[in-house]
């Protein structure tokens, strides 16, 4: 592959990385807000349906351990950074910034999705379901494409 000839697929992958990176940041912020809501629900004495569901969720997270919640939060933030950084790397066709960080994101994302599916119960908003498989589509596709189709395109 001659230098400077970036395939359209790699550009599309970079754009998708920026989109999913933005969504990942929003997801991490959402997790922080969820934590605040759950904390408030656990302390409130209200007994309507919504408060009951939030209390159940708070109890489920206490059982799993809040440490795991923070791990997921940090993994989400790191994934967002990796997505955006590797997106820039795809555009510049850089080996470390593009391929290495892209692979790192894919492995981290697959690992965290599987951990969410296995360790977090359905009551806490986790559990292994088709949603888990949907979350796996992009990282698996990234891992596959970076190591086959676009393997020779990172020339810098």
């Amino acid at each position, binding site marked *: 592959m001659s230098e400077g000839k970036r*395939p*359209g*697929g790699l*550009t*599309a*992958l970079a754009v*998708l990385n920026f989109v999913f990176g933005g969504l990942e940041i929003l997801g991490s912020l959402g997790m922080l807000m969820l934590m605040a809501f759950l904390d408030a629900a656990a302390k409130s004495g209200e007994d309507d349906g919504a408060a009951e569901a939030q209390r159940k969720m708070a109890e489920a997270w206490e059982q799993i351990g809040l440490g795991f919640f923070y791990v997921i939060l940090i993994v989400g933030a790191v994934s967002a950074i990796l997505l955006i950084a590797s997106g820039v790397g795809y555009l510049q066709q850089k080996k470390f910034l593009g391929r290495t960080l892209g692979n790192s994101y894919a492995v981290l994302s697959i690992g965290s999705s599987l951990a969410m599916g296995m360790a977090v119960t*359905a009551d806490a908003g986790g559990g*292994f*379901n*088709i*949603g888990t*498989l*949907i979350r796996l*589509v*992009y990282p698996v*596709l990234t891992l596959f*494409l970076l190591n086959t*189709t*676009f393997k020779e395109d990172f020339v810098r």
Partner: protein
Amino acid sequence: MKARHVQLIASYSARYSVRGGIGLVFLLLSLTFGLLVAHTMLQPVEIAAAQFAKGRNADPARATQRALEAITEQAKPVVAWMLTPSTREPDAEAKRAGDAWSDFLLDDRPALLSAIFLILLFGWPLVVAFGAFDLYAGDIGSRQLRYQLLRVDRGSIYFGRLLGMVVTFVLVLLLLGVTVTAYIGLKLSVYEWPALLGWSAYGTLALVVVSLPYVALCAWLSAGFASSFASLTIASLVIGGVPLFAALGGRQFEVLGYASYLLPWGFQLRLFHPEAGQVALAAGGCLLQAALFAWLGHRKFTRRDL
């Protein structure tokens, strides 16, 4: 046209479509859409099963079975209404046929798979447009086909790329079918494996057959335009517009309802009919339309300025 050239172009087209970007977006879109449809169908069953298991201390497989039975009973009238021939006032015979058809799909066959296939059948043609709209239009616009024409004839390019696109669709549908079947079989454990595998293979094959005329239509339209955007817009408008026009027009004048037969929309549902004759007619219709659109596309591609 040479078979060796067609085979070579098909193989490269299928393998390298992802490099162009459009193939990558299509792959992501089609896999996400297929899994999302499955998720929409499976999630209510899983939630109901979890509630049932908690409330009555039942084992997960039994709870899923009971939840599935309850949801199937509720969904049956809607499915029967969907499958009843759409005349202004369906008679008792038509209603009976609709009921028998819904019994076949929801009782005799794995109901969850049937529901997923029915929804996919309505959404998949629109996904096809996103995968096949740029078969030729982009390269016609950028005049890049001239370099290939030094080595191969137009017919080989046309059918090679068309075949490559069909192969891509078959692979994506196979991947979806295997994923959803494995999930239902391993996680829910409510169906016997032979029944599940058999119906999954049949449904995947039906979706492949339905895809053929839409892919051929996209090939025809793509051969007619020198702009990818124009090709995508027209393909989406035609594929989505035909059933819309038939539904709205059919309310005013019954004859306009038959416009849905211009594409497989009018009969594609019959690929899941209990009678073999109806299935054969629907499959024959799909293949006939695929051949017609492919021929029209070939005619256009071999005569136009490239």
